[in-house]
């Protein structure tokens, strides 16, 4: 019976450790930063020890965020008494003692450990002396040292997933000088060296979950050492490492105290309020901390310009940009408003014509108001100087960016002032919309008109002209020249940014003009009071103004602010008559706008078909949103007739629109065909599995480890879980694998008998415990049984359950978390339409929410059943894959055991677009 315990140890903490952990500290929640206070502040270690603990904090800003640093509790000082705790938190932190003989190299010894057991490694302590060391110094120079050098400390960690194994060493030489740096070559032991190294599991490694430590460190550094930094930039990987190293070595002793104080102070203060406080007291320092990074790169992946590199600032922890590209932009979710990764929030915008992507990264808790503004402005300016042949824009763009950044910030500042003036806190979108109106300095009505027109995405500039003021026109013209640029974040506050930006800039010049502020205040008040009617209007126009509607869906800034809108409305309810008035006016204005659009349309027609013909032949036609709209609508309808969930079709179309807008139409191509090809590509991309769906290989791998491969089938009632389980069993049997069934549907009468019948027909063993048993326990016993009789695969049948049934979902979550299967297969029927989205989201969500362990298992794959019954309505496959990101692993398409297929992606795409 040692099977289960060994199993348990590998998979997670033992119950005892678990209990200890819960007693010592509650398990960290999934989304929140893990509690630093694994070290309670009043610990008694002496000052130097604290200092050591404080140090690595700065390293948290490095690209490799070593798990070692993320929890100072595992610092080398107190390994023994804290071990159980450490084990609990780190998925089995195991200490190893390495003895390295004189004359041997130290580093390969340490890395070999990682190669042996494939776990992450952190070096806890090393003592001894070395005879030769090659170090990368803070100045960027690599130099070689000879002679007996005593190791003061050697630390760092090796994380395979992050490709920066950063080990650093501080050495004392014979003349008692201290050398420190990153190990860049052989480190050869002079005396026997003893190294204590800890290895820990990959799943215990949480990058970037610690709160940000202190805002102004990197800035101090760049201010003092800006010149050296630029020279190091030639080696991007080491640059960031050396940056910190330098900081360390050049630091006066006083800084140590600062570190300690900060370190103790930090756990006490709420991380969300910390940066804001700094913001109040010292703006100039915080400036680049508010916006972590602004990055410009090509769709091909080459970084053209980065604010961090150009203007100084700390490198990001982890790689949020790669995460953004991989899990958002490449998944056809680019029409979303923002993306969060760890503690960062990211916003982006495209210039499709030039193939550029602009991404802004900032701390999620900051809710920066000016990011959209800034992105649009940066895009506008950068597009002008962009040249495909050029790869470095440091000299040209640095100053422009500084300027734009300052302007954007000034604008937010002003918005805040406005807020104070009105004595309330207008929401971000409202404030944004007010801005253009207020700035033109025209009368209230005209201003409102302007702000409303800004709300409309495509024809912001055309509607601005009737404003009549010269400023407005100027802006309209300016906008026109860049109308082809697209702001993808339109969802959150529409497209007015583009317009707002210029008007704002102009306005700043006229800041001092009298009587202005009252005007602004009045406008803001009116707009605020208008908030509710606006929402009503939008509800009616789901088809085209969905962006602003969806704003409320996002948990990011928009969410709480959305709530505030409602608050505002309550406050100003006294003016309801006014509101109604506004409803009317805004309604009519919208109509006017539409009229205007039509007028523009007819005007274009008047220009005659000849010019449009000429345009299409010349192929210089820039695609605009209004051009794409009809084709996309047709496409969306087509997708929906193929049974794609409405929500998904809508999102896909938005994403395709975002990727096409601003592109030049080739000669002799029609918009509809362009859209069609873009959609085809998008669909192909979505349906292509992200991970391997080769189950047989995984089974063989599990077999080599001597464990059965466990597959759990989950799904709603009556989709065919048991039937398809039997088909999968048959398929596995054909490949000479021994299969065992586990009847964990202990709920529906007849379920066990059904499975038993299948087992008899297939001549395979079945593990059953009758009804009314806890399915989680039955599954566990089944797996033990399979381990004992050396079965290769265990197929676990579960009871069907509706996604809203919480007790049953909790039971399922327990089953999955207790047994940690190799594959959680969601069985869904191809007949399902809009409900597919609901089913999968809820299943995934419930599995995550109801799990008791921090790393919850989600759905890994999809089995699509009843595929033979749906003819060409194959949309469910797309809906399910899009919503869950999991690949379709099998397709059930008939009544016999052999009717199990793989999904043919190409034919599905073809059918969907037929």
């Amino acid at each position: 019976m040692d099977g289960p315990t060994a199993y348990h140890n590998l998979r997670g903490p033992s119950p005892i450790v678990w209990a200890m952990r819960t007693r010592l500290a509650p398990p960290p929640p999934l989304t929140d930063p893990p509690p630093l206070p694994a070290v309670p502040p009043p610990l008694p270690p002496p000052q130097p020890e604290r200092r050591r603990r404080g140090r690595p904090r700065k390293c948290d800003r490095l690209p490799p965020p070593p798990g070692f640093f993320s929890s100072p509790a595992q610092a080398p000082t107190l390994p023994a008494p804290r071990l159980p705790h450490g084990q609990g938190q780190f998925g089995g932190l195991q200490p190893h003692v390495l003895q390295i003989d004189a004359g041997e190299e130290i580093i390969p010894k340490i890395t070999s450990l990682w190669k042996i057991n494939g776990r992450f490694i952190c070096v806890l302590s090393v003592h001894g002396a070395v005879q030769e060391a090659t170090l990368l110094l803070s100045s960027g120079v690599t130099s070689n040292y000879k002679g007996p050098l005593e190791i003061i400390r050697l630390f760092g960690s090796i994380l395979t997933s992050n490709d920066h194994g950063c080990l650093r060493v501080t050495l004392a030489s014979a003349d008692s000088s201290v050398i420190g740096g990153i190990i860049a070559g052989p480190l050869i032991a002079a005396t026997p060296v003893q190294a204590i190294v800890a290895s820990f599991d990959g799943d215990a490694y949480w990058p970037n979950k610690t709160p940000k430590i202190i805002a102004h460190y990197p800035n101090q550094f760049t201010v003092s050492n800006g010149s050296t930094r630029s020279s190091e930039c030639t080696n991007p990987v080491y640059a960031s490492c050396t940056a910190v190293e330098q900081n360390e070595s050049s630091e006066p002793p006083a800084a140590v105290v600062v570190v300690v104080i900060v370190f103790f102070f930090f756990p006490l203060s709420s991380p969300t309020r910390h940066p804001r406080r700094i913001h109040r007291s010292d703006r100039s320092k915080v400036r680049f901390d508010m916006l972590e990074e602004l990055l410009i790169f090509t769709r091909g992946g080459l970084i053209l310009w980065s604010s961090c590199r150009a203007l100084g600032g700390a490198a990001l922890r982890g790689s949020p940009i790669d995460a953004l590209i991989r899990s958002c932009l490449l998944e056809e979710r680019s029409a979303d408003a923002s993306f969060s990764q760890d503690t960062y929030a990211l916003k982006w915008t495209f210039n499709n014509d030039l193939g550029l992507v602009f991404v802004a990264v900032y701390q999620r808790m900051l809710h920066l108001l000016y990011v959209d503004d800034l992105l649009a402005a940066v895009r506008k300016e950068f597009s002008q100087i962009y040249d495909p042949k050029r790869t470095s824009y440091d000299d040209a763009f640095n100053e422009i960016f500084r300027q734009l950044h300052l302007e954007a910030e000034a604008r937010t500042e002003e918005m805040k002032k406005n807020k104070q003036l009105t004595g309330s806190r207008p929401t971000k979108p409202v404030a944004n919309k007010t801005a253009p109106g207020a700035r033109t300095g025209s009368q209230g009505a005209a201003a409102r008109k302007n702000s409303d027109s800004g709300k409309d995405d495509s024809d912001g500039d055309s509607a601005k002209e009737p404003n009549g003021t010269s400023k407005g026109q100027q802006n309209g013209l300016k906008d026109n020249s860049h109308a082809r640029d697209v702001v993808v974040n339109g969802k959150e506050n529409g497209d007015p940014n583009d317009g707002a930006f210029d008007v704002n800039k102009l306005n700043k010049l006229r800041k001092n003009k009298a009587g202005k502020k009252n005007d602004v205040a009045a406008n803001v008040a009116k707009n605020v009071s208008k908030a509710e009617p606006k929402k009503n209007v939008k509800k009616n126009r789901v088809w085209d103004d969905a962006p602003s509607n969806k704003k409320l869906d996002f948990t990011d800034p928009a969410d709480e602010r959305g709530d505030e809108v409602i608050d505002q409305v309550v406050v100003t309810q006294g003016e309801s008559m006014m509101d109604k008035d506004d409803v009317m006016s805004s309604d009519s204005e919208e109509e006017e706008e539409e009229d205007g659009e039509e007028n523009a349309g007819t005007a274009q027609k008047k220009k005659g078909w000849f010019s449009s013909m000429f345009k299409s032949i010349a192929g210089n036609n820039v695609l605009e949103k209004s051009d794409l709209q009809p084709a996309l609508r047709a496409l969306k309808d087509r997708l929906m007739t193929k049974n794609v969930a409405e929500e998904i079709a809508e999102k896909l179309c938005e994403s395709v629109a975002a990727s096409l807008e601003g592109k030049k139409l080739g000669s002799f191509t029609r918009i509809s065909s362009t859209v069609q090809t873009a959609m085809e590509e998008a669909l192909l991309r979505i349906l292509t599995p992200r991970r391997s769906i080769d189950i047989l290989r995984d089974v063989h791998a599990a077999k080599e480890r001597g464990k059965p491969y466990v597959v759990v089938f989950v799904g709603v009632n009556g989709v065919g879980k048991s039937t398809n389980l039997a088909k999968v069993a048959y398929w596995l049997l054909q490949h000479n694998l021994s299969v065992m069934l586990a009847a964990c549907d202990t709920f529906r009468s007849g379920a066990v008998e059904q499975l038993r019948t299948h087992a008899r027909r297939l001549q395979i063993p079945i593990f059953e415990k009758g009804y009314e048993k806890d399915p989680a326990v039955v599954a566990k016993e089944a797996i033990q049984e399979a381990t004992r009789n050396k079965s290769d695969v265990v197929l676990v049948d579960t009871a069907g359950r509706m996604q809203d049934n919480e007790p049953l979902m909790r039971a399922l979550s327990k089953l999955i978390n207790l047994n940690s299967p190799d594959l959680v297969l969601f069985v869904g029927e191809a007949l399902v339409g809009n409900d597919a989205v609901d089913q999968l989201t809820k299943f995934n969500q419930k599995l995550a929410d109801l799990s008791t362990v921090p790393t919850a298992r989600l759905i890994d794959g999809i089995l699509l059943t009843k595929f033979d019954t749906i003819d060409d309505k194959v949309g469910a496959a797309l809906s399910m894959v899009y919503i869950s990101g999991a690949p379709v692993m099998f397709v059930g398409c008939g009544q016999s055991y052999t009717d199990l297929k793989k999904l043919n992606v190409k034919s599905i795409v073809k059918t969907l677009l037929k």
Partner: protein
Amino acid sequence: MDEWVRQAEVWVGHAERWIRQQPPEQIYAAVAVIAVTILLLVAVSCLKSSKPNTIVLSGLSGGGKTILFYQLRDGSSHQGTVTSMEQNNDTFVLHSELERKGKIKPVHVVDVPGHARLKPKLDETLPQAAGIVFVVDAQDFLSTMQAVAEYLYDILTKATVVKKKIPVLIFCNKTDKVTAHSKEFIKKQLEKEINKLRESRNAISSADITDEVKLGNPGEAFNFSQCQNEVTVAEGAGLTGNVSAVEQFIREYVKA
């Protein structure tokens, strides 16, 4: 039938008479023009069907393909890269050969994004390939080994690759790092993994996997020498500019 023949003879006679009436210079000129056109067409088609000059950079995301691409083109990795969303392609003379005198044939290099979702893009570029550079992350090899092997297996079993015997260079990137694996180790592990894959892939029944080609000799452990096309392994580091292995490979198959 006879009637047609007579008719034809009449026409031939007409034509002959007409030709005799023309001045001979004109006829010679006409013949010359036709001959030159045909020759040109033949020459162009010959050139086109001659050796393709496309080198495809493939491999998993994060392996360093884009860096390699810019190293080959500009001899610098610029300011670093992020995950590619579209392919980079350009025709250029290798950076290391810029100083060389004489006319050098430029190479067309395509850097195909490695993200799994973009795998279908590879199929579009493979038919024109003169060589494939498969970039492997030697540092992060163990954790990505299976995916790497699978991708490599897909490439090696592509019908176009096998039929045209497109050579493949497995380039172990990032060997400047201390923790990087050696190319021998990587080669051995990949062979082992492909061997496993061969079993499980051949077993897939009723799947719609097309153009599947059997790899290696059945009943024998797989190694790269069994491939019909040439598979070589080399190492280097894109970031530090140590890409001579790739340049050598390119020049071997795209003659300067």
